[in-house]
């Protein structure tokens, strides 16, 4: 089957499942907390979730370069973002795009829905990474890094984002490398690190706040990482704002200021 035929067929199948995407989107059900579901397909598994009787598509399995961090069975997820208006359903779900998925830390053994291949669900695009060997490149390419700053060096700030209740994880090195490099380049003498605590207002009105103390823990952890990676000569000022700022993923952050 040619690629074009495959795409056409996939689009037709998906169109059949499109349903009333637009009307569901108007209900603005996000953010919400629910169990994730893994739905296998003939190509790669996709991740969906059910909330208040509706199914939502979150993303697919790809590789570590993906901006989408897939959920974990055994844990609920906090889903933030918005339903993409007019988009055809994928894997039976309304498409949440943009989407931020946070894996809740406490275990939820009831979240154990693992669905085998359903031939009705054919992805309407070529998955960037098959389950087997890749084609020799990552599924997603990172933007090229900006050219190294030139003297005179000025103070620069960098932001480390987090999942809800998240700390440093496998994604952190990519965002922490630029401040590390800038600190090395400028032989930073002074580094200010401020941690923040976030809170999310769920669609049912519940306020979901990160635990008290996380802002401080985040700031301390980033400081220890920078020191451990070699920026151990600078003077560090580590502060935290434990007031839970209600908003989206942007409220969960640590800000690093490198002062040459």
């Amino acid at each position, binding site marked *: 089957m040619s690629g074009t035929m495959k795409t056409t067929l996939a689009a037709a199948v998906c169109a059949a499942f499109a349903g009333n995407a637009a009307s569901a989107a108007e209900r603005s059900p996000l953010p919400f907390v629910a169990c994730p579901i*893994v739905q*296998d397909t003939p190509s*790669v*598994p996709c*991740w969906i979730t059910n909330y208040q009787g509706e199914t939502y598509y979150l993303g697919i*399995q790809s*590789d*570590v370069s*993906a901006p989408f*961090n*897939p*959920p*974990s*069975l*055994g*844990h609920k997820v906090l889903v933030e973002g918005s339903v993409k208006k007019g988009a055809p359903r994928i894997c039976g779900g309304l498409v949440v795009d943009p989407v931020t998925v946070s*894996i809740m*830390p*406490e*275990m939820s053994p009831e979240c154990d829905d*693992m669905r085998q291949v359903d031939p009705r669900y054919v992805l309407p695009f070529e998955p960037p990474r098959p*389950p*087997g*060997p*890749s*084609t*020799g*490149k990552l599924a997603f390419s990172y933007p090229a890094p900006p050219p190294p700053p030139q003297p005179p060096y000025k103070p620069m700030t960098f932001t480390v984002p987090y999942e809800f*209740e998240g*700390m*440093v*994880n*496998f*994604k*952190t*090195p990519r965002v*922490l*490398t630029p401040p*590390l490099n800038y600190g090395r380049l400028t032989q930073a003498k002074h580094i200010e690190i401020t941690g923040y605590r976030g809170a999310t207002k769920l669609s049912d009105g519940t306020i979901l706040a990160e635990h008290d103390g996380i802002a401080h823990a985040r700031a301390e952890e980033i400081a*220890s*990482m920078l*020191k*451990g*990676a*070699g920026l*151990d000569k600078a003077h560090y000022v580590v502060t935290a704002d434990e007031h839970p700022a209600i908003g989206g993923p942007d409220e969960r952050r640590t800000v690093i200021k490198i002062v040459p």
Partner: protein
Amino acid sequence: MGGRQSWYWRQGIDKAVLALSLVCLAASATYGAAKQSDTPGTQGEVAGHVPDQLEQAQQTPASATKTGDGPPRWWAPGEGRTFPEFVEYGDPTGAVGLYNQGGAFKTAGHPFFEPLGRNGRACVSCHQPADGMGLSLRSIDERWKATGGKDPIFAAIDGSNCPSLPQGDPASHSLLLKRGLFRVFLPWPPKAADGSPIKPEFDIEVIRDPSGCNLDPKYGLKSANPMISVYRRPRVVSNMQYVLHRNFGIGAFVGKTGEPATRDPENGQPVNMNMMADARQPTLKTQAVEAAITHLQFDGVLSPDQLNRIQAFENQMYSAQVRSNEAGSLVEADGPSAFGPRNLAKGEKGVLGNNTTKWVFPVGDAWQKQKPGESDAEFAMRQSIIRGQKIFHFRTFWIKDSMYLNNVGLGNPVKRTCATCHGMHMTGMDTANGWMDIGTTNAPWAKEAPRNPWQTEDELMPLFKITCHKNVAPHPYLGRVIYTQDPGRALISGKCNDVGAIVMQQFRGLAARAPYFSNGSAANVRELIDYYDRRYNIQYSEQEKEDLEHFLESL
């Protein structure tokens, strides 16, 4: 270093053995550039846990028994024979070959081959050429029988279940004799690089202690020098340029956890942390310093020259299977480029191979057609090996609840293949630095004799209960209470998420060095495959298992 020196003094440790080591290392040309670090394992020449190990090693009686040279396949310490450029030894499925890229040399006086410490061992004692530079259960059994348990590998310090047990009684050496395991003793709580205790994220309780060592008043957790004893297989000292690469995936931070990578104390560069089961030592030299203390009971100071010679030897050795009893030679000139130690020496180091442009184990088209002179049996076995290679790369299954695989952006579960985790070109190791928990040491997956009325085998391994503190997130797959035979990396980091996480090993020369896994729980390659089949509900067919077995045994 003032803090470290005062700490030694406070502990009453004799001197300066380690401080002198530092002085010697500092004399080397590059060491002056080394930076102090807050990262455990990187400050100075040894990690912060080593002084406590030294104290226990010095307290443990030792005698250097010269047992005479063994059969030609056994290298006894201090024999002084010549190490050739290439040598092969028979193993259960054919032969393993060793390619010494530096060329033949006399081992007399070489620190890898000489008995340096009080117990008569050398590095080569547990890194035997005939076992692909590891140590097989077969060799252990042969040495026990040949020497009546007097070979230095059975030394009380770690070749017995506990130094306090009556030495020479097979029951006192059961972990070595039955599973090929040596005792690894580590201080609890763990120590940072400056020797200060790390505050663990969990409490640890000894639930079962068949060896008696964890509860021993002199050597155990409640002794004056609190130690946890776990039992692990010696790792292969070969193909180390792959094991220690600084290529794909290695940077300032550990790719899987985000924490700062341990750094080489000589040059400050991050290392890949893939050498030891718990990544507790960064380089061949720092590992040699610790091993000389803990395994050889060496009370002296390894000189810069000795460390350089050990490092050079370990970096120039390549080992792999070269012959299959049924498939014939694996290293014909026109054969698959995955096989044999010379291909390993030529291969690209530290490259991700889980892709269609560079396979983990490339076999190409060499064995697609039966060649003149190739018997039907040989051809059939080669076809089976090729099928096994395809299963390794392409056969998908659901990987679930495996720490540092499922929580690093792939999702839990993830539908992938063997090559997903075992992705390093030519070795099947992980290219990125880090460790993983596939359940080999943690309940409910770790193998142990079940307690039921129908079995007579007693449990061999210790069992620890780990309770994660309430102020940290629970382990994502095991929760707040974890039962484990070996906490793995968590004994170094003190982190709840690291419990049972073990650095994966290379796949080369497998046939020469059974048993497998860090705790020796797979007696042969089939048991290894069966473990994965159970663990991940792969449902391999019998044919798939056979093919995979043949493939792995050809590496």
